[in-house]
């Protein structure tokens, strides 16, 4: 029985390896896409930033889900990360809030 389990897990890992290679290729493609789009010089800076961050978020998600195994983790890890997401979102929210309620005479660029 234990032999059988061992064999199964080897087979699973071998499947994982294929996924890792696919993710690796996707990350390289993502990098090329980011740099390539940058050479196109969009009119709008906002659009350029949005696209670059969008690609970066996809790449980061791939790394976190597959390389860091977050796609199938134990609940404990998700609980820790839920706190992290909350505080990180709060930090960025506070940063962006400066846009909404600037002191008098402030100019944004």
């Amino acid at each position, binding site marked *: 029985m234990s032999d059988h389990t061992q064999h199964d897990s080897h087979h699973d890992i071998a499947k994982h*390896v294929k996924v*890792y290679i696919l993710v690796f290729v996707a990350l390289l493609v993502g990098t*090329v896409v980011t740099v390539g789009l940058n050479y196109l010089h969009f009119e709008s800076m906002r659009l350029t930033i949005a696209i670059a961050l969008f690609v*970066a978020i996809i790449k980061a998600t791939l*790394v976190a889900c597959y390389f860091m195994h977050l796609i199938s983790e134990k609940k404990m890890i998700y609980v*820790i*990360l839920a706190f992290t997401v909350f505080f*990180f979102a709060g930090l960025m929210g506070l940063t962006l809030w400066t846009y909404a309620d600037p002191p008098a005479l402030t100019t944004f660029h």
Partner: protein
Amino acid sequence: MEIPYTSQARPDTGIYNAKVGIWLFLASEVMLFGALFSAYILLRVGAPDGTWVHGLLNIPIGTFNTAVLITSSVTVVLSWAALKMGNFGRYKIYQSVTILCALGFLGIKSFEYKEKFSHYEVWLKKPITVKHGEHEVQVDRLLGHIEYQGKHPAFWNTKTLAGATEIKDASGKVIKAAVPPVEAFKLEPDPFHYTMTAKEIAHAKKAAAGKPHEAIEIKAADVKRLSAFVPSHSTYFAIYFTLTALHALHVFGGALVIFYIWGPGAKMWKTDPEQYINRVEVSGLFWHFVDLVWIFLFPVLYLL
């Protein structure tokens, strides 16, 4: 004292302790880098019009370094998978590629740093006429490398031009000799700007082919400000060096741990393979995080 649950899962969490530990640590790391990204955003939106630095980093080199780091990330996870399948030899090979990639990344990064330290921006009191390809243009701001007495000095700033008086210690012995003021220096302006498209660069290279690079003589009296691309150049370079140096320290630390487990720490594979695999996994989680941070740093600092 024996540390509990280094190889077996703790019943209540369902995972070994080190994994909870590394994730708690990574959570704090997210906030550390998050705070610096927040600083970046505030510095950027607060910069007066036209003063935020663009296109002064070498995009091809940065892209290559990104690929190097991504490669190291995949070899880390492949080495872990090899161990899981009991293939110690393959683990050793993959992880040696990881270590080489880490060293490569740091080597390329230090080359980039060195370039910045000897690359200058000069603001002039009055505009001068310079050749820009086939055109002549009036500029009061120049980018390039300085040539002075046959050398390419690093870390110059406006104060350097004034020279320095000698410094003596209490007994009157000269510790540091006087440096005469700089009267004039040569500036080799950048031929090709990093933000130029591939087409523009090809065109500019064709136009400049065979012609010697023309250095411009600049009198110190005409200089309003001079700065290498160091933190004091601008808030952009201040946050650039803060973020990338902190990241490079992480690369160095991560590589050190991976190297220890790979080399002297590999004895554990014989005595406690479960714990050994866990060590590889935990160091790998840290490594992927370092890669993840770079995924954001690269577009934010090099491209946007």
